[in-house]
């Protein structure tokens, strides 16, 4: 059975399950989204945006929509980031696990499946759900909209600061079978409110997981959001994720994406700067080895004047791994006095590793400051000899230099405990 036939069957049974509940707004979107997906399909390398990243390998696996999970609480608690202090929301194979999560007595945050969310906060869903997404062009986003039933719905009311950060952990229980999930999170941060949030992706077991996730974040006027995404998935995993952000006047958004491990990773980070005096930061670090494939696509859409965006992505690629960086910056005609900076730097450690970088700047305004740069090079032999000449053995010298290369992305993290855990993971990977 082809993957498309399987997906159609799944969608039919989902509609059957939802029978009688289909009047709701998100369900009306569902059928439209599925129609779009059928037209668009799973992207292939003929699609310019997927030129270097092939999903053909998905056909090899027999993905189950597994709700029943075989993981024990001990296993989940023994993974990195399990001890991170904050509101822990744990999703196992795409299903929210109340038992593994923090108690959510806090009134400010709700985690619901969508039918419940519509009962509890219909106005949030109606106003925001799916609003920033492009399901006319993005096949897998459309598929997510068609199939998603679970996710965190987070609403931070105006002038509120969540004392604790939100930690969303996605555990793929892949010890026994190949599993997939279509989680969809929605975070709405009210005027002058603040949120710190991290999404973590981890496998338990060596089978394949196919994650097709969408996270939507609305940053209202003067609101501030720190968003982290940490990927530590296994070598047979597939991950396609879209983080869609809309920012309003004088808001601040910071994103840092760390891909420590993953078989196939495609991250789309889309920022729409729909206001003035906005500040946006995007940092990324990817350190693939073996046959790992990491593709980061970012889009910053400056729509109004006087905003600033700043982007730094860095990669360390070993063995036969492949990396892709595509950074789009749009500066619309209205967006005078825009400052937009983009930089992507890579170190290739092996002859067989490869990196494709493509900055794409489209500027319609005339009074702007934009810069971009990409570099891909080898390790600095002079620096390694310098270290050796002081008594540091070559492997140590290489490790020290790679850690230093990653440092200006890692040191950006203002969340100390998170940074320390991440540092350990990164060093462990660089040592292997």
């Amino acid at each position, binding site marked *: 059975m082809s993957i498309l036939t399987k997906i159609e069957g799944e969608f039919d049974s989902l509609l059957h399950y939802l029978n009688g509940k289909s009047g709701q707004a998100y369900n009306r979107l569902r059928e439209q989204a599925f129609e779009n997906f059928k037209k668009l399909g799973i992207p292939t390398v003929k699609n310019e945006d997927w030129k270097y990243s092939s999903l053909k390998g998905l056909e090899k696996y027999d993905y189950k929509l597994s709700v029943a999970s075989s993981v024990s609480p001990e296993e989940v608690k023994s993974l990195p980031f399990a001890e991170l202090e904050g509101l822990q929301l744990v999703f196992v194979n795409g299903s929210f696990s109340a038992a593994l999560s923090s108690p959510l007595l806090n009134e400010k945050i709700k985690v619901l499946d969508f039918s419940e969310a519509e009962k509890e906060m219909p106005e949030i869903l109606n106003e925001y759900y799916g609003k920033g997404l492009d399901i006319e062009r993005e096949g897998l986003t459309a598929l997510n909209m068609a199939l998603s039933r679970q996710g965190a719905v987070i609403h931070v009311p105006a002038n509120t600061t969540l004392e604790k950060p939100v930690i969303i952990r996605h555990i793929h229980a892949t010890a026994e079978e190949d599993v997939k999930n279509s989680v969809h999170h929605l975070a709405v941060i009210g005027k002058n409110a603040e949120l710190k949030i991290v999404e973590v992706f981890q496998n338990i077991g060596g089978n394949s997981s196919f994650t097709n996730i969408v996270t939507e974040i609305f940053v209202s006027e003067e609101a501030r959001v720190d968003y982290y995404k940490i990927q530590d998935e296994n070598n047979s995993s597939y991950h396609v994720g879209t983080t869609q952000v809309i920012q309003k006047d004088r808001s601040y958004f910071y994103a840092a994406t760390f891909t420590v491990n993953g078989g196939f990773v495609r991250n789309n980070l889309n920022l729409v700067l729909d206001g003035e005096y906005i500040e946006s930061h995007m940092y990324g670090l990817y350190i693939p080895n073996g046959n790992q494939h990491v593709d980061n696509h970012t889009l910053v859409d400056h729509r109004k004047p006087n905003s600033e965006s700043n982007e730094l992505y860095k990669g360390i690629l070993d063995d036969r791994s492949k990396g892709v960086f595509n950074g789009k910056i749009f500066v619309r005609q209205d967006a005078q006095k825009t400052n937009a900076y983009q930089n992507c730097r890579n170190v290739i450690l092996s002859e067989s590793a490869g990196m494709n970088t493509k900055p794409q700047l489209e500027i319609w305004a005339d009074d702007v400051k934009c810069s971009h740069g990409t570099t891909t090079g080898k390790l600095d032999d002079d*620096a390694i000899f*310098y270290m050796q000449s002081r008594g*540091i053995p070559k492997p140590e010298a290489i490790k020290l230099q790679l850690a230093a290369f990653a440092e200006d992305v890692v040191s950006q993290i203002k969340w100390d405990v998170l940074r320390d855990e991440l540092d350990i993971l990164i060093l462990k990977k660089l040592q292997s």
Partner: protein
Amino acid sequence: MLNISNLQARVESKEILKGINLEVKPGEVHAIMGPNGSGKSTLASVLAGRETFEVTGGSVEFNGKDLLELAPEERAAEGIFLAFQYPIEIPGVTTINFLKTALNQIRKYHGQDPLDAAQFLKLMKEKAKTVKIDDQLLRRSLNEGFSGGEKKRNEIFQMAMLEPALAILDETDSGLDIDALRIVADGVNQLRSKDRSFIVVTHYQRLLEYIVPDYVHVLYKGRIVKSGTKELALELEEKGYDWIKAEADSVSA
């Protein structure tokens, strides 16, 4: 301590060292002078173990060991230190972190326990004072954005920390104004002792006014063509290199 015998080296197919003979005893300061392109810096690099250069003949014995058999880090652990002509900038690694790693790796090589943070900092403060380098500089990324003088001073500071048996200064005077030169030379002189030897590679006599050598050798076309005492440096200052070139060329012709 150091015995170089008929040392030959090339980079790609270009012969650069064509048979160097040099003996350095404990506590001695040898200056290597010579016109540009004579092979001075190559000699310094070969002794430190830079892979760009291929040793094609000869031998180097250092405290009874075959130096050419050792990796650069092993040479460092055995007591060789090269002060670079162009110290490398390494963003993201502080001088402190760098030197702590280096020092403890050398200690490990000798089967000693690593210094803990407090012991290291104490040692560092002491040595920083000796060579008059600002603590703040050492907390920054290694050499990143340092002025020429600051970089050279950092080299001397590293030398003070690692306490080598043989220090090789590769054109340490290049790019320094007279004040910076004096500070660097003072640092070196502080470190002179009856057990520690120096090879001072320089194009100009100027540095040797401050670091007074026991012997001066002139390198030309990959060979030491003249050796003498510090007076030879003065003669070179006065007359330039042409007379040496003429002398050497007539011998080889």
